[in-house]
């Protein structure tokens, strides 16, 4: 069982040993291992995106009393691959008056950011592609850079709907970044670390969701807003601004936005699983399976919310963040601090 748990670590160790015995220098070995991790993370990302796409459509259908895509492949599993191939085959049409460089760069940036986030996640004990001791900070910092890319897309398209979408994204993401970060602070205080692996490890026995239910609520709401998922999907509100920032995108460029959106969904769900659901902690099954399972549970909850709620209004949603979520999360931090002190006092005596 332990072997199964550490399967990937053992493989990695074996590969390193192999390279040592072949006389690779330490630097070269690191580079090769980096490449292998990159390939593994990319593969994980693609598989997950394709699966989430399928699950999203099937789950939506089931909520709506219908069956959903069930023709391509068993249970329609290959539907998203079919769609991806279709999108690749399509012509990418660029508006004549677009700001060409900005327009071309934006989808790449969005997708790269989404991909890098995967490198930071602890998939199991010691299983992080890039292990940073301030991983959480880096995660938040990096995920907010995609705002710039989205604004670029909105600006570069030279379309009023796109620009409105871009502006809405900026307003929304910046507003909700604050409660998102504050909601994580409680967890950081409890675990005493910003290393995602150590945060997971700190939840041995007791998940932080039980210690930080308020923070979890704030996290969930602000994560939805950060992801621009329903009920906070004003940035690509089909009924209002057509498709928001990616109105003018087609073909593979559109596919990049689309995949980045679902990739982000998975990585934020994974972050939630790491922070509040104990990451890879769990009995019997290997850690990475626990991690994936918890992440998928988070994904399903987010989808469930999406297919149930109508869209909120932009200004009311802003008010909700400034007037409710931020005070709530600050209060939570305060209470967490008091709680920790009391706990230390009680245990210390």
């Amino acid at each position, binding site marked *: 069982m332990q072997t199964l748990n550490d399967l990937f670590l053992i493989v990695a160790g074996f590969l390193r040993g192999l390279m040592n015995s072949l006389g690779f220098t330490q630097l070269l070995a690191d580079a090769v291992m980096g490449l292998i991790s990159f390939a593994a993370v990319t593969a994980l990302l693609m598989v997950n995106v394709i699966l989430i796409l399928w699950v999203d459509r099937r789950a939506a259908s*089931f*909520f709506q009393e*219908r069956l959903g895509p069930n023709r391509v492949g068993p249970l329609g599993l290959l539907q998203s691959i079919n769609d991806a191939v279709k999108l690749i085959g399509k012509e990418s049409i660029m508006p004549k008056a677009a700001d060409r460089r900005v327009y071309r760069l934006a989808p790449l940036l969005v997708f790269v950011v989404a991909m890098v986030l995967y490198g930071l996640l602890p998939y199991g004990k010691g299983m992080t592609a890039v292990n940073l001791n301030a991983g959480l900070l880096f995660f938040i910092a990096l995920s907010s850079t995609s705002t710039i890319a989205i604004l670029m897309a909105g600006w570069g398209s030279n379309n009023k709907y796109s620009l409105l979408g871009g502006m809405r994204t900026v307003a929304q993401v910046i507003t909700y970044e604050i409660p998102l970060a504050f909601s994580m602070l409680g967890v950081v205080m409890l675990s005493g670390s910003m290393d995602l692996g150590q945060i997971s490890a700190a939840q041995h026995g007791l998940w932080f969701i039980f210690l930080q239910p308020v923070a979890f609520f704030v996290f969930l709401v602000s994560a939805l807003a950060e992801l621009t998922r329903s009920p906070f999907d004003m940035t690509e509100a089909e009924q209002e601004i057509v498709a928001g920032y990616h109105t003018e995108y087609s073909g593979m460029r559109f596919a990049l936005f689309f995949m980045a959106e679902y990739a982000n969904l998975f990585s934020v769900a994974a972050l939630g699983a790491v922070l509040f659901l104990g990451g890879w902690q769990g009995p019997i099954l290997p850690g990475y399976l626990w991690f994936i399972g918890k992440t998928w549970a988070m994904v399903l909850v987010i989808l*469930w*919310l999406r297919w*149930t*709620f109508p869209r909120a209004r932009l200004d009311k949603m802003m008010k909700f963040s400034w007037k409710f979520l931020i005070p709530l999360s600050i209060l939570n931090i305060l209470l967490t601090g008091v709680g920790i002190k009391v706990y230390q006092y009680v245990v210390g005596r």
Partner: protein
Amino acid sequence: MLGIGLVQGLFTTAKRFLMKKVTQQYPEELPDLPPRSRGSFGFDVDACISCGLCEDACPNGVIRVEYFLGERNKRQLLRYSMNLGYCLFCGLCVEACPRDAIYFKPDFTLACYRKDDAVFQWRGNAYRPPEVPAASAPAAPEGK
């Protein structure tokens, strides 16, 4: 309390998630259409007396009855055509027909690739093919 409505909504969708689905898997599972359903037309060549009432009744000029005067000035049907591309499926022709020669069928698969294919034709008993077949003569999906 604020939020009750949200939770209620979540329960509703969860309930429907588990309930029976309404999707019909179309080509395998055909809809059970009522007998009156106006899907497409059937035409009884033997019953038709080429009176042209249907042609008159049609609001859109969809129907054309071609006939010639046979013995005792009796009309003989040559060809009966309906350009379903213009058809409103209102049923006035069916209502007008004194012999029930034209009637509705619930069969609704009318999709076709060319505009000409939307012209349904039935050849009357008196029909003789033209000596030089015209290249543009439309195919008759229901031809007899």
